[in-house]
């Protein structure tokens, strides 16, 4: 399977999940699981080659000019991470199916989860750092959605915001760092960058690039001092915590450090920044973990601590330490994902996660206890579990590293291990051992296998790797460490290194010290509780408040909420700028010959000017002003028709009809008069601004039209190619559907979005109690006479088929004569709108078989398919083709793919216009219902 396809699979899964939820949460989970499994099997199919030392690549040129290409690669490191992301992903999907309650929207959950999975997979498969950055930002965004999944919980929302602010901010720094790196290496492709070690480390920009990239990595991997977001992200549902904080999100920072290790590591700067940060994070977070009562908080700080450990190992910059780092990434992912899920089980069954309220669960939840015991002992580093192996190797590396003094690193690493033992044992002792209590919030017992199966599989791995590391994990460690260090790695992992190994004694000291710490826990806890500490959240919130306050002061200083005032300022600047440009440059009057003015033109001109002055004079009478506006619009259409623009005339005419209808409906709900409010001075000011702007616009237009274009217009090409290139004689239509089809595609999407916005806003109005009450008042106030006159109803029903035929005719001839999808869509929309008027909205709605949303969506889809069809012929998107077809008994006619595209335009326009008007009509309906509720007869 192509790597690009594998990377795309989770995103496809996200779409499928959002659809599959209609068939229930089980279907949704199955879809998510199948897609993840498919991606995993695709990765595993490449595994044999990768283990032989090959690198699998897929290259798609996207924007070669910018160096942005969709290049993917799979080497040992990518393989390790992809297996973690997808393998643990499948387990999480299973676990979440049974964890989420029936009230939680599972479709959203799986959609976000797959989105996140895709973003993570994209990071580890990217061969282009720009692509990597895109996926990196996507992880920040999708993790925001996941952490804040329980929208009703303020902690969830705040935690999500904090995670986004910290990791997103770090991501921005990393963008800068990666761009610098790309500039130094002369390419944005990792495969090139990774060969440029000497050039990069010799560059004066090495240190800035390093710091910026590390900022991104440290924030993502919750390294001190950016560690504070991770515990707050625990407000997420447990499956999310288990996924984000064991195998994926927080490992992304480690991944980037490992990925860049060949070119960035090995310098004193790297050693001091990375190793020190890792060491401090490891010890500090382990200490905090010891004093947390919430199970998930203990695990959160333990995660921070273990991430620090891995960061420190990467910071050492030696091959041996990198191997250990890779090995611990695997081990930590297995036992920590299991522990998070088990903590979730405890929460699920006992309705609390507080160690102060738990205890004695050993007999009540034997399965959960057994699994938790194995995973925690691995976290503590007790043999023969996998956590022990990598901890021993870590201590060995630490003992051999000189940091300030020869012994400081070893001592502090042992202290970290000691604290790790202490909090792991405390978790077991205070959570599961001790007497059974009588005051659990909910009587705990073991859950069904749906919940414990996933952690059980992981605990099985914990044990298997611990007992037989060479058999189970060495191959993956060799491959990944080989990719990190760029050399062939043949690692040897043993449980027993002999009595001479320093790590053994450090390990024994850690376990002994850990047990002693637990014995002294009550006294230590009192001391901890009595010491004041800065609370990260308060500091963070304070900083955010200060920043938003500053932003608000600046905004308020610039903008006082007065729309007109801002408008006047903006116009004054524009007019002054234009006038300055005009007055400071030389110019001569234009010499182009003007068209003569016929009497008919003069009459039309006088009418349009009169209508405008009347609109200005009587604008307070809103209905009259609307009619005058409509007259001006219709006369503009007449002008277009006269000046050789029949397509424009048709469009303007139909749009005008629709717009006036829309405004008439709107006037139902708005006051019919505009009160006199502004002072004479203000009106004079506005009048002056308007007059000056108008004179400027007129002069500009006149100057433009009395000259020929400075450069030959490209329209000659369009006119020449209209028939031979696009197969149509109507040059305007061929430009719309063919030459500039991409623009049109964007425009119909914008129109569709506008219609959906209108629909959504109508929904919010209809769901707002105050607004509905106001609507009903308006409805009672405006008592129209007859509802629908019989004559009108009959006439409009008779007109419907005729209008539809006109629409079809305009559509079909559009490629060669005035018409086309836009006009046809508008005409068809009008055909139905007239039914709203003639027979009432409810009547029309009851007979409407096709949903407007559906028509709108189908339009965009048809246009896309018409464009994408070109791919089948190896041509770029929206390349059109045409041929002549003879279909008996018709004459030979032409069939162009552009016509299919135009069909999409037609559907989209018709759907959008109808959706917009129908939304407004629903307001009318709500108001009318209120009127019908009134008691009949004299009141």
């Amino acid at each position, binding site marked *: 399977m192509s790597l690009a396809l594998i990377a795309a699979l989770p995103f496809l899964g996200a779409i499928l999940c959002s659809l599959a939820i209609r068939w229930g949460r089980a279907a949704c989970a199955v879809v998510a699981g199948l897609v993840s499994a498919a991606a995993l099997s695709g990765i595993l199919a490449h595994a044999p080659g990768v283990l032989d030392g090959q690198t699998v690549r897929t290259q798609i040129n996207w924007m070669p000019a910018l160096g942005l290409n969709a290049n993917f690669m799979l080497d040992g490191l990518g393989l390790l991470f992809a297996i973690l992301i997808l393998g643990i992903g499948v387990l999480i999907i299973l676990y979440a199916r049974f964890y989420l309650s029936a009230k939680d929207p599972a479709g959203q959950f799986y959609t976000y989860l797959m989105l996140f999975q895709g973003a993570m997979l994209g990071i580890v498969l990217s061969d282009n750092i720009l692509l990597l950055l895109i996926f990196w930002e996507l992880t920040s965004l999708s993790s925001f959605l996941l952490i804040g999944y329980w929208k009703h919980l303020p902690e969830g929302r705040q935690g999500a915001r904090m995670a986004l602010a910290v990791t997103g901010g770090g991501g921005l720094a990393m963008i800068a760092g990666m761009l610098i790196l790309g500039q130094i290496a002369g390419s944005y492709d990792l495969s090139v960058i990774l060969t440029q070690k000497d050039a990069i480390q010799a560059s004066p920009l090495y240190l800035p690039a390093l710091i910026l990239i590390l900022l991104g990595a440290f924030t993502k991997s919750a390294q001190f001092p950016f560690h504070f977001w991770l515990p707050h992200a625990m407000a997420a549902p447990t499956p999310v915590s288990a996924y984000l904080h064991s195998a994926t999100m927080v490992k992304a920072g480690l991944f980037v450090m490992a990925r860049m290790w060949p070119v960035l590591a090995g310098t004193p700067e790297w050693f001091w920044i990375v190793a020190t940060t890792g060491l401090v994070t490891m010890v500090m977070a382990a200490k905090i973990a010891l004093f947390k009562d919430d199970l998930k908080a203990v695990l959160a700080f333990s995660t921070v601590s273990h991430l620090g450990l891995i960061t420190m190992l990467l910071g050492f910059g030696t091959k041996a330490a990198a191997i250990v780092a890779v090995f611990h990434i695997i081990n930590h992912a297995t036992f920590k994902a299991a522990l998070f899920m088990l903590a979730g089980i405890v929460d699920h069954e006992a309705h609390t996660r507080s160690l102060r309220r738990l205890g004695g669960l050993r007999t009540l939840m034997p399965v959960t206890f057994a699994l938790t015991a194995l995973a925690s002992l691995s976290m503590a580093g007790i043999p023969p579990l996998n956590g022990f192996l990598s901890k021993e190797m870590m201590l060995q590396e630490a003992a051999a590293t000189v940091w300030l003094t020869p012994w400081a690193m070893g001592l502090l690493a042992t202290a970290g291990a000691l604290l790790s033992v202490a909090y792991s044992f405390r978790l077991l002792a205070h959570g599961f051992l001790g007497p059974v209590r009588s005051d659990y919030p909910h009587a705990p017992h073991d859950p069904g296998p749906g919940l414990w199966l996933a952690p059980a599989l992981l605990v099985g791995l914990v044990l298997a790797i611990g007992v037989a590391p060479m058999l189970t994990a060495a191959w993956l460690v060799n491959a990944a460490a080989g990719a990190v260090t760029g050399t062939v790695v043949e690692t040897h992992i043993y449980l027993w290194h002999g009595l001479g190994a320093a790590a053994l004694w450090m390990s024994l000291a850690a376990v002994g010290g850990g047990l002693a710490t637990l014995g002294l826990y009550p006294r230590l806890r009192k001391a901890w509780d009595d010491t004041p500490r800065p609370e990260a959240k308060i500091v963070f919130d304070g900083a955010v408040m200060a920043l938003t306050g500053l932003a608000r002061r600046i905004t308020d200083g610039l903008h006082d909420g007065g729309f007109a005032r801002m408008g006047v300022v903006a116009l004054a600047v524009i007019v002054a700028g234009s006038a300055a440009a005009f007055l400071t440059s030389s110019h001569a009057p234009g010499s182009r010959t003007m*068209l003569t003015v016929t009497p008919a033109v003069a009459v039309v001109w006088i009418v349009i000017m009169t209508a405008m002055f009347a609109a200005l004079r009587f604008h307070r009478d809103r209905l009259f002003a609307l009619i005058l506006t409509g007259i001006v619009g219709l006369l503009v259409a007449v002008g277009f028709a006269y000046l*050789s623009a029949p397509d*424009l005339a048709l469009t303007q005419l139909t749009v005008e009809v629709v*717009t006036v209808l829309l405004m008439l409906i709107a006037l139902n709900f708005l006051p019919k008069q505009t009160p006199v409010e502004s002072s004479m001075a203000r009106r004079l000011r506005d009048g002056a601004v308007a007059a000056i702007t108008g004179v400027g616009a007129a002069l500009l237009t006149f100057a433009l039209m009395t000259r020929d274009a400075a450069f030959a217009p490209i329209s000659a090409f369009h006119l020449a190619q209209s028939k031979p290139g696009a197969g149509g004689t109507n040059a305007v239509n061929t430009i719309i559907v063919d030459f500039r089809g991409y623009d049109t595609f964007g425009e119909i999407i914008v129109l569709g979005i506008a219609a959906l916005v209108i629909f959504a806003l109508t929904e919010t*109005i209809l769901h707002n109690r105050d607004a509905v009450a106001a609507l009903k008042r308006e409805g009672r106030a405006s008592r129209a006479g007859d509802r629908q006159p019989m004559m009108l109803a009959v006439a409009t029903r008779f007109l419907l088929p005729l209008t539809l035929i006109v629409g079809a005719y305009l559509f079909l001839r559009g490629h060669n004569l005035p018409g086309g999808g836009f006009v046809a869509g508008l005409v068809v929309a009008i055909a139905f709108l007239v039914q709203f008027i003639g027979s009432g909205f409810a009547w029309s709605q009851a007979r409407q078989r096709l949903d407007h949303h559906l028509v709108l969506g189908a339009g965009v889809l048809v246009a896309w398919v018409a464009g994408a069809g070109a791919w089948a012929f190896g041509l770029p998107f929206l390349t059109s083709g045409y041929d002549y077809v003879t279909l008996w008994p018709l004459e030979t006619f032409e069939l162009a793919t552009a016509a299919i595209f135009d069909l999409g335009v037609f559907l989209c326009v018709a759907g959008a216009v109808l959706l917009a008007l129908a*939304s407004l009509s629903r307001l009318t309906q709500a108001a009318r219902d209120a009127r019908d509720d009134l008691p009949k007869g004299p009141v």
Partner: protein
Amino acid sequence: MEALIAITIGALTATGVYLVLRQRSFPVILGLSFLSYAVNVFIFATGRVQTDAIPIIGEGRIYTDPLPQALVLTAIVISFGMTAVIVIMAIGGYLKAGHDRVDLDEDGR
């Protein structure tokens, strides 16, 4: 003819600007409509104007510039979408706030 078109565009612009600067939502919407007309006609005019020169190949000897026409055609439809969105916003604002003033109150920020 060119002079008449220029004056019309100027008048459309001036009417639009004056109405946009009013304090109630409905005149502002009408003003935006006028500004849309002005801008559309202006873009159309950048192709220079000609009579009896419709850009249908084979219909005549000379053709007017089709490109501004294509641009304006989609602009007309899009401006309908824009107007519709503003209209529903105005209705929502009026129904929820009880007035249709466009300026924010002191405490309404």
